[in-house]
């Protein structure tokens, strides 16, 4: 299942890469890309327990980059 989020407030491109790596480690995530330029987060995750997975993604973002806001589009 593919989900796209607008991701705002990332400081630098490297932070985007690190965040990407952190999200990739979440269970149930098959693929994730963060485009620093387009301010977009695209995740591809399992259909099963998608809500739980997305909650975890948000938790990781909160932990890694507290200033970042995300919104599903």
């Amino acid at each position, binding site marked *: 299942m593919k989900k796209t989020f607008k991701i705002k407030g990332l400081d630098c491109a490297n932070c985007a890469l690190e965040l990407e790596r952190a999200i990739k480690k979440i269970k149930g995530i098959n693929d994730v890309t963060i485009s620093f330029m*387009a301010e977009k987060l695209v995740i591809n995750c399992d259909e099963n327990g998608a809500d739980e997975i997305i909650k975890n993604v948000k938790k990781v973002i909160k932990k890694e980059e507290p200033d970042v806001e995300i919104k599903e589009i």
Partner: protein
Amino acid sequence: MKKRTIKIIIAFILFLVSLVISFENVWINSILYIISYLIVGLDIVIKAVRNIFRGKIFDENFLMTIATIGAFAIGEFPEAVAVMLFYQVGELFQSYAVDKSRKSIASLMDIRPDFANLKKDGKIEKCDPEEINIEDIIIIKPGEKVPLDGTVIDGNSMLDTSALTGESIPREVTVGDDILSGCINQTGLLEVKVTKKFGESTVSKILDLVENASSKKSKSENFISKFAKYYTPIVVVIAILLAIIPPIIFKETEFTEWLYRALTFLVVSCPCALVISIPLGFFGGIGGASKLGILVKGSNYLEALSNTEIVVFDKTGTLTEGVFEVQKINPVDISKEDLIKYAAYAESFSNHPIAISLIKAYGKSIDSKIISETSELSGLGVNAIVDGKNILVGNEKLMKEKNITYEKCNEIGTILYVAIDNKFVGTITISDKIKVDAKDSIERLKRNNVKKTIMLTGDKIKVAENVASKLNIDEVYAELLPSDKVEKVEELIKMKSDNGKLAFVGDGINDAPVLAISDIGIAMGGLGSDAAIEAADVVLMTDEPSKVVDAIKISRKTMRIVKQNIIFAISIKILVLILSAFGLSNMWEAVFADVGVSVLAILNSLRVLRVKKSKK
């Protein structure tokens, strides 16, 4: 951003005062430096502390904090402040540049309509384009964007299509014309019957495509993210070793000197310059291309385009206009009118250019009630029951396939053989025109180091060779069924070199499978077929073959800039690392290697956005 600028200016003044005036009491100087530092760098220090608790030690805030506090500790006050100042100036500049390029790309893609004027029961109501249904009537006033795809039922006007196609000449539309969402109505009031819902209309499709482009990363981007992953930890480890080991070995040297060198290392260890400039380059390249009406679906495709070695063109609709005209009607035992009538009726359900030309030549309206059991015979023609008669319209192969005796027609062009109830009744000659910019495009492709140009067509060899020789195309494969085209392209893919790429250019009619298997599938006149947009990697909004050359040129320029940035950033960093290890470079130069390089790389990336339209 304004607040940051003011902070930097105040801190800079304090710093200058302290640097120029030597107060009698040295403490005043030191205090001025510290105040200046706090003004400009406090938020960085706070972020750094916060990050330590989250276990992020290779974060750039942390590195800058350690480096500058270390500088304070060894008494290099001016240096500490200057490094922080310079760093903040660089960051400011960087976010300005990123912001600016985001905006300029967003404005390129500013085609999303905000509202539609729905006409209902004689009243006009402003509403969300998403609420409009097919068959609804909408009004478009001059200056407004066309919100949904539709057909003009009243009024005439000039449409500015430049946001979609990059074409600056306005298009005239009148009753009966189809118009695409995303264009701007310039002069007259139009009444339009909606033919597609917002989600399926052109504007939604384009926005979808461009917005998702950034999620497909190129090899260069993946290389950089791997590089960044290892670079920072390695440099930090070396810095620590540099601070500890030499003072133990060379007992006579000062510990602070080595510490200073180690701190310089930390300043250079941030990979941001690299990490930002690469995606920015691709982002710019994709943006610049869309300005010309070339939609690239991902950085990876832009990268692949730059290695294009073979360009395979479909003939009809790609190199030729695809606007066929009936040239000659040769009836056998039947009147001319009847021959064209039955052919037009049989083809009337198809949207193939040939069908359209037949209907045009027939010139009367088609009564669809008398047509039944229509079927398309892939690569052969069509079959339909019209007025109770079994009509076959197709190529010579169709006649052979159905065992119908026919007279061969030797004219150049597409020959349609028509049979009624399995009896041959004549031929219709249809021919096509080569596009104006086709010849020039082939020549420019060759000038731009494309090794081979190839044309594939389902058309007859005689017609194909005629077109190919006029255009100077290297190889021609004719009389191919759609499945043959797939096989041929697979064969050609095997022939190219390891790094070379094969691009297939088609108009999307019947060639979605070929678009999908090619390294780069380019769909032309992209709004024609949904399957083509889906399968293609690059969508050209207009149907000019010259856009293929433009796309390749933009990709080459993007890759050149990306490579320049990679080489420039890495080599400056390594140079400064080496110099500072030997004590030949100071912290100022290290900051340059960090932020200065990123700013230069960003400026270099922004060059991609400046694309020129190719001369016609």
